């Protein structure tokens, strides 16, 4: 596939390569990680949000998540910190939209207080989300550049 390049704002910069995991709808953080946060599952992060047809049932441990933004409970930020503590967090969260306050708060606190960086880039635009598909090769660079393909 032809390589496509997008430029976003690096909130928590970093470099990572792998394959993309895409959520077309807002990622409901608590719904996604319920088994990890509440049911004692500590070895995998299986998405438990039945409303998210893209991710439901998939292990998203260490994923390079491509998403519009996160939605849902105000616990969302803490949940990201909790999965980071267990080593089950995504490696990167790539937001098409402006990052929301819940995710931003949790991601910053995980980085500053727990030394657990989840690479965070926002404002990649809807074109980015339209272009990327689960399984696509994806490269994330320090300056917020994201390459697909």
């Amino acid at each position: 596939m032809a390589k496509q390049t997008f430029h976003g704002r690096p909130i928590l910069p970093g470099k990572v390569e792998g394959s993309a995991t895409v959520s077309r709808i807002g990622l409901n953080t608590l719904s996604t990680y319920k088994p990890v946060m509440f049911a004692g599952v500590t070895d995998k992060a299986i998405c438990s949000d039945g409303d998210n047809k893209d991710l439901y049932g998939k292990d998203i441990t260490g994923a390079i998540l491509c998403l519009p933004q996160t939605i849902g409970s105000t616990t969302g930020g803490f949940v990201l910190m909790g999965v980071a503590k267990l080593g089950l967090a995504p490696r990167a969260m790539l937001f098409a939209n402006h990052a929301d306050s819940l995710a931003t708060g949790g991601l910053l606190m995980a980085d500053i207080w727990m030394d657990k960086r989840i690479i965070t880039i926002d404002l990649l635009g809807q074109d980015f989300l339209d272009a990327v598909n689960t399984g696509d090769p994806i490269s994330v660079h320090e300056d917020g550049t994201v390459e697909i393909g």
Partner: protein
Amino acid sequence: MTINTASILTGDEKFDKHLEIGPDPHGAMCTGTGHSRAHVKHDPAAPAHKMKLTKEEQDIMAGKKGDVLAKVMKTVVQYGEVFGADKLVDLGGNPHTVLMFGNDSVAPIIDIFNQCADAGLKAYAPYTLDPRPNDLYNLETTPEMQYKIQQCYNLQDEIEKVHLRLGAKNMNYWSCTCYWPEVGNAPKQGTYLAWSESSAVNYSNSVLGSRSNRNSGGLEMLCNILGKAPNFGLMTDEGRKAKWLIEVTTTDEPQWSVLGGAIGMKVMEDVPFVAGIDRYLGQVDNLSCGKLKDMGAATATNGAVGLYHVENITPDAIDQGRNLLVKGYQTYVIDDAEIDRVRKAYPNLWSKTDAKPTRVFVGCPHNSFHQLYDWGMKVTHALANRGQAKVAIPLHLFCSPLVFDHFLDEHSELVRDLKRVGVNFTNTCPLTFAGIPGITETEFFITNSNKTREYTNARFLNDGALLETVLTGEMPADADL
């Protein structure tokens, strides 16, 4: 992978999706701060946005007042820069936080708070919290339910202890409606705050004229420990301008929480200027403040509104009138038909859709003194008119202990009568009570709160239908009207 169904989940997605504390059925996307930034685009050529910090703030960031306070400063500054803040502003009044429940999901936050407390840090002023998530005494819970509650909030002691170390007021002051006179956390107009609890932010900003963004839980406490918050959004004159004119033309006084829900779903996190309801409110007084609380909480949960203006009523609107409307504002007319349309769209999320109701929730956010009196009189008069001794299903009136004490002091015989007929008073939260594992399989809640409807699987009824159901235990035929 095994799911421990003895823990919080039933293991059945159909039920579990309704067990969360604060799910978002609409899947609405916004920044959540109460200030839309949909217009912001990234320019790779532009330098990264930086806040302007004073020398003292830079020194704190550099660790001259300790490593922990440096982390607090770094977190608050980075957060502010994400949302375009220009500087930090000093906070006033007293803080309020939503972070009242202790379970595994908040363990990392408890760790951070303990680091702050261990370093001798406290909030800049004594603060109030949302209500405790459980009430093991007043809600007619079975031993099995109480066991599940204890499991569900397994870190409750830990979060309460660290709050008390950080400067929380005693637990009588723990209420989502911290601004009622009995609780007393009512900031003056123009006070900068870093509050969380969407309904409290919404009420304080709108009815009292304070200036707080809708803050992410945890971040607000770091701001309160610092005594400063990033200046953006609803803290600025520009951010308090209204992008929507809401023209309410209903022929009668609307159900306030339905009206608020309609506004929230339309404007999402923009600021609305509401016209046409001053005729039902008159002024901000003991009666109208309950209506404004219920309307505002619904705008904050059906949407993400952190501030609204009401023509001729709220302080910014009194000061500036329609000059608060931005150029090119949009208009949304809410008439009787629109209220009906919105109301009829509320889903029935009960696990057995034709079940009989088992409990009635009134007071989300917590009732005011006047609302307790109003419901007390309605219920006792209706029972007397029917010659009926008891309510058919338990009615739970949620309120602060301080508001209840006031009510007991002024109307002790009414309180006695209400308890005798089966009405309970509780200082907990209906959302967290409805979050007890598996409870949605056997309990079927009804409420007049749009916030409770939005965040649990409770069914919504207008006040009249709710009262009828309290008396009969049967859902009215026109329950969804």
